[in-house]
């Protein structure tokens, strides 16, 4: 167990180091997020009130599209020199490998989200600072759900033709309950109606728990067969 967690950290560190070295995915997804934000502000010439009503929805759309760019790379990065084989052959248990990769993607995606949030607020004249900490909590919870399922699907689709296309088709529908929850809570937080968000939050948490345990349990089948 302890060995496994340590191995997970090594994997996460390796992924983060290579990612920060080239910053390829990070740059692509931040710029993607910015463009989507900009486009939205061009596309929707909405009034202030109406905009507040969809603010959470927009935010999470941006996050989930940017997230896909990061999360999908997770296992695919191991393909080029058959590195995945070496990792699987090592004494580390499969769940540790999976956890390590999830942690790395989670950190990256969270960074992208934290960079986009102020930009989003700025572009759309939204007040969000007052609700930063609760928003950050929702972001953490929902991002974990996005990452854990995304990385699992990244492992599932390692040998799929057209995986870049397949992955979102498989992943997004699965995310709907999580996103619906996160969108509602975020809208409520930004609008300052933090009253009855608990129910939606519960779905997000349930999603996290169910898919984390399911993925950790099934990952051995996925990786070793």
């Amino acid at each position, binding site marked *: 167990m302890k060995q496994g967690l340590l191995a997970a950290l090594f994997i996460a560190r390796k992924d983060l180091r290579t990612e920060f070295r080239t910053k390829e995915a990070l740059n692509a997804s931040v710029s993607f997020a910015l463009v989507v934000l900009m486009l939205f502000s061009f596309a929707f010439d909405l009034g202030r009130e109406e905009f507040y009503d969809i603010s959470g929805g927009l935010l999470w759309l941006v996050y989930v599209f940017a997230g896909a760019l990061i999360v999908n790379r997770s296992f695919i990065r191991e393909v080029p020199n058959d590195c995945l084989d070496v990792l699987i052959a090592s004494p580390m248990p499969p769940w540790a490998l999976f956890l390590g990769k999830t942690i790395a993607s989670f950190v990256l995606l969270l960074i992208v989200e934290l960079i986009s949030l102020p930009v989003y607020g700025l572009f759309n004249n939204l007040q969000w600072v007052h609700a930063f900490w609760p928003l950050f909590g929702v972001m953490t919870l929902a991002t974990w759900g996005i990452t854990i399922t995304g990385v*699992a699907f990244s492992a599932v689709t390692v*040998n799929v*033709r057209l995986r870049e296309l397949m992955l979102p088709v498989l992943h997004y529908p699965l995310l709907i*309950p999580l996103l*619906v929850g996160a969108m509602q809570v975020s809208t409520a937080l930004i609008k300052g109606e933090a009253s009855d968000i608990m129910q939606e939050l519960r779905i997000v948490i*349930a999603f996290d728990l*169910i*898919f984390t345990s399911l993925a950790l349990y099934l990952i051995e089948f996925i990786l070793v*067969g």
Partner: protein
Amino acid sequence: MRDKAIYILGILGTLLMIWNLHTIFVVLPGEAAQGQIGKMLFIHVPAAITAYSYYAVAVVCSIAFLVTKNFKYDSVAVSSIEVAQVFTLVNLVTGSLWGHVIWGIWWTWDLRLTSQFMCFMLYLGYLLMRPAIAEATQRATMSAILAIFAAADIPLVVMAIRLHNVRTQHPAPVLETGGVDATWWPPLATGYFVLMLIAAALVLVRLRQETVRREIDSLRRELHAM
């Protein structure tokens, strides 16, 4: 043996369906508020429930595949999902037609409609992914995992959308709350039974195709390896 089962199920299903359609359109009077179009219910609802039934079969078979690695389970799972997709589509299309008559629109992002569409999309991904994996063991394993993920997701979808629930266009549950005339129950139940029979026949046909395809595949590989 299997061929015979297909014929028997098919013929039985067809006969029962004819009898049931007779009951629905000739014996029963039109619905009070909606007239004849209300009888869409007799296909619309059984189709949905049949679809759910076969999705359930699929998840059980997927788990069985992971445990036993027996390809038979994989074949049953994929056949069930394909057939269930067809019935989901029947439900969507009949609902859409019905909606066009009653509401004047084909579609709206109402909770029931959306969750049904979601269900369709979840399994559409499954069907799209399968042919994209070249190696059969891997294909079966990954498909099983997807089916399990999808099944775990559906309750969450329903819960989330219930909460979200901004628009409610679709009728509230009438079956459980007794909003349906007593005379409507037997044809409804028969309708479900009929569709289950037909679906079973379709699954069997698909199973046979799967088996044949696997054989062809292995023969071709054998040729290449020589």
